[in-house]
């Protein structure tokens, strides 16, 4: 008995020793998600972590190109758009299978079902169904009949009629047609989003909201879910039946996702070789940049988000556009990103960053005061001179009599930025009085909502915006259009100073929705941006966000907007050597 056990042990040890020699070693990527994904359900996701894991498991009609975020084929191989951009017909490929992953063995089985247009139709309707309670149903409301269906009472008699009236229809197994209630040249970008992905009706009907748990879930993307131990880790394995493996170079067999929230801990895990990709906590930034090894592993790259200060344009004294422009001019964006935020952020002169379609970022004919001379702008000194002049012209020489309240939500980072900007303003307008107040996040958002009485609102508020889809419609129109957007800056056509410009801004962003010619749309959005940040100066754009990441030398990765792990290449031998030593 004892002998048998020892024998077994010897075999096991030999097996372990031989394992790498057999060349069967799995290539495993260790990646920290930073938090537990609130869901893996394409209909319900609203945050980047959930979207990241959904992207691996479900193919979109379109995908976003790595370099310019333009829509490229994914599940749809081609599409047709009618003249006024209200009808979109997608032709789907017929070689994508639904797969299931066994949680015990990690074995992937190909189901006897192809992904069809009916799955996409079901997915869109399920997202819109009022019983699903989907946040991002909001972006699909452009579809004809979608708003009526989404706001219907599920008990109502005509509920099913309303469902049938929604303008999404599978014409046959491989063709799906969307009819929109208004022209939307940007719908190809929306088609890349998680809310418009195919969903497996038979699985959802069997398991309900639990269908996304390992063992239940059925997927079609390059990776599928083997394990999800909530708040601890998630394991995804390669789906060998995904049809495009021969078109990508990636070699990762398994992804081990951790959910460590604290950046300094994730950084320590990275140093310990427990992670292949790691964050840089702000206090470590200078050290990492100076370190001979870590500085080579560091990547700073722009991401499609903007940090800005908005003005409540009907609240004196910031109802005067001269005051708003002067304040925007007196922000030293270069110093701010170099000395305060330190993450290689880019000074912003427009609302939408570079990679958004229609963006005018860096265009020196728009708010040139925001840019340093080497980017073709005025530079801070000249901007300050003009700011002083404008402020005096508006009746506040040196800021005399200027009383402002700046508000931001509670956060160490926002506080540092606000204090820096307060100091810059007081330097330029020494007689002004500028107070800073903070509120808890949701209380803060409630304060900013346009139905809050204006006396409870600050003059200046801080917010950021990140793209849902890479088109200016998601930026200048949805956020600021006075008629159809959120318009938290409270722009109104009756504005005594710039009412005409505001009306023009509103017309431009609506006209751009109906315009199909890309060059023409670009021109419309350029003018809209100029009005928003320069002539009206409803906001002071501050910087475009960046992502700061460390990558181990054994991993060569690509930089899609959402990670495409199927394109990443990992040298497992080098990784094992580092982890062993």
């Amino acid at each position, binding site marked *: 008995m004892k002998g048998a056990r020892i024998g077994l042990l010897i075999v096991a040890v030999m097996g372990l020793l031989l394992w790498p020699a057999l060349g069967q070693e799995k290539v495993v990527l260790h990646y920290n998600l930073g938090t537990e994904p609130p869901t893996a359900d394409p209909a319900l996701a609203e945050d980047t972590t959930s979207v990241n894991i959904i992207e691996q498991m479900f193919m979109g009609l379109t995908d976003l190109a790595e370099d310019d975020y333009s829509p490229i084929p994914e599940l749809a191989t081609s599409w047709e758009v009618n003249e006024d951009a209200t009808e979109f017909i997608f032709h789907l490929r017929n070689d994508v299978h639904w797969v299931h992953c066994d949680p015990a063995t990690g074995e992937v089985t190909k189901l006897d079902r192809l992904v069809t247009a009916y799955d996409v139709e079901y997915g869109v309707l399920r997202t819109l169904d009022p019983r699903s309670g989907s946040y991002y149903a909001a972006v699909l409301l452009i579809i004809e009949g979608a708003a009526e269906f989404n706001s219907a009472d599920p008990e109502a008699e005509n509920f099913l009629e309303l469902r049938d009236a929604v303008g999404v229809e599978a014409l046959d197994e491989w063709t799906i047609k969307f009819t929109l209630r208004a022209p939307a040249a940007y719908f190809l970008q929306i088609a890349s989003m998680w809310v418009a992905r195919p969903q497996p009706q038979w699985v959802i009907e069997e398991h309900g909201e639990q269908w996304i748990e390992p063992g239940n879930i059925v997927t079609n993307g390059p990776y599928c879910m083997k394990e999800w131990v909530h708040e*601890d880790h998630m394991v995804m394995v390669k789906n060998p039946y995904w049809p495009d493996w021969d078109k990508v170079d990636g070699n990762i067999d398994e992804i081990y996702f951790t959910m460590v929230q604290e950046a300094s801990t994730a950084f320590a895990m990275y140093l310990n070789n427990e992670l292949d990709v790691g964050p840089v906590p702000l206090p470590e930034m200078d050290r990492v940049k100076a370190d001979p090894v870590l500085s080579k592993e560091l990547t700073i790259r722009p991401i499609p988000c903007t940090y800005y200060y908005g003005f409540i344009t009907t609240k004196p004294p910031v109802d005067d556009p001269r005051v708003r422009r002067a304040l925007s001019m007196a922000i030293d964006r270069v110093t701010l990103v170099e000395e305060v935020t330190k993450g290689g952020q880019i000074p912003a002169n427009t609302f939408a960053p570079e990679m958004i379609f229609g963006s005018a970022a860096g265009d020196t004919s728009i708010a040139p005061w925001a840019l340093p001379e080497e980017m073709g702008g005025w530079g801070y000194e000249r901007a300050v001179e003009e700011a002083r002049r404008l402020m005096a012209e508006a009746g506040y020489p040196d800021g005399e009599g200027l009383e402002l309240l700046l508000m931001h939500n509670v956060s160490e980072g926002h506080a540092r930025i606000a204090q820096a900007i307060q100091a810059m303003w007081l330097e330029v307008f020494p007689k002004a009085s500028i107070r800073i107040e903070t509120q808890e996040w*949701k209380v803060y958002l409630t304060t900013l909502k346009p139905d809050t009485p204006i006396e409870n609102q600050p003059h200046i508020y801080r917010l950021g915006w990140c793209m849902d889809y890479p088109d200016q419609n998601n930026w200048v129109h949805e956020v600021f259009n006075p008629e159809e957007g959120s318009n938290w800056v409270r722009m109104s056509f009756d504005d005594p100073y710039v009412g005409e410009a505001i009306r023009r801004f509103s017309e431009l962003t609506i006209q751009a929705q109906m315009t199909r010619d890309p060059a023409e749309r670009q021109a419309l959005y350029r003018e809209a941006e100029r009005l928003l940040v320069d002539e009206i100066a409803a906001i002071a754009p501050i910087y475009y966000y960046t992502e700061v990441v460390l990558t181990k030398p054994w991993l060569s990765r690509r930089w899609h907007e959402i990670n495409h792990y199927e394109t990443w290449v990992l040298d497992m031998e080098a990784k094992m050597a580092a982890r062993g030593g």
Partner: protein
Amino acid sequence: MIKYIIRRILWFIPVLLAIITATFLLAHSIPGGPFDFAGEKQLPESVRQNLMRKYRLDKPVYVQLGLWIWDVLRFDFGPSYYSRGQTVNDILRRTFPISAQLGVLSLILALLIGIPMGTIAAVKQNTLVDYSATFIAILGVSIPNMVLGPLLIWVFSVHLGWFPAARWGVDYTQLYLGIFPPMTHKFWAHAFLPMVTLGTAYSASIARLTRASLLQVIREDYMRTAMAKGLHGFRVIVVHGLRNSLIPVATVLGPMFAGIVTGSLIVERIFGIPGMGRYFVDSITNRDYPVIMGVTLVYSVLLVAGNLLVDLSYAWLDPRIRYD
């Protein structure tokens, strides 16, 4: 004694009902509802209405409260608003055992260090031993977890490589009876640093309390009598002195127990431990009402139960105390 316990347990009911109601009303009175925004985006009215209906927030507040109490009586804390597809029961079932493991280990460590350290300091009052023990205790109280934790990771994990930097050694799927961890090497390797971080802070306050209380007891007449009888010094201190001086320690131990086993937000966050601690804060940030009420209720039950145990322990620590 039995009668006393039953009476106390019956008192739990109104206390807990009051806590449930107060938590419910307070949670609902924070400005900004759970479904007003997605990130910084304001939601269309139809989307908001659908969510409110789905989670029955469209009903009048008193109806919601009634339904909530009815659910609690059936031990069903409802769905989480934020973690879609998960119930509060799921969340508690998987996070509470992890927090409790870390908490119980830290508490044991805190007692093992704190009581002897406090005793030695008291017996050797105003000597070098006392001063060093007091110094260490003050150090332990004043170094916050958020400094000690990263420091320990830095030294013992990144530089010495003795322990993994973060995470817990088992997950909720591997527990015996849903709460007991397997005593593997991996478990202890992951548990050690967070246990030390959390335990030392508590051990310091226990040590200080033990010392102060023992110093008082030492001067009591019965101690002098015991000494005069010729009993061994060590025996006098431990059997007669320490037992009596533990009453203040036991008093703080009740609430301390409830707090420590429901998870430390900071230590769990620093070490990436999937415990309950973060839900005390995140649930409020997310306005995830069912989770707010679930975690508060668990904490309250432990608190009242802890206090009952403390009261019972008085009878054992001080024979003069009787519950009739």
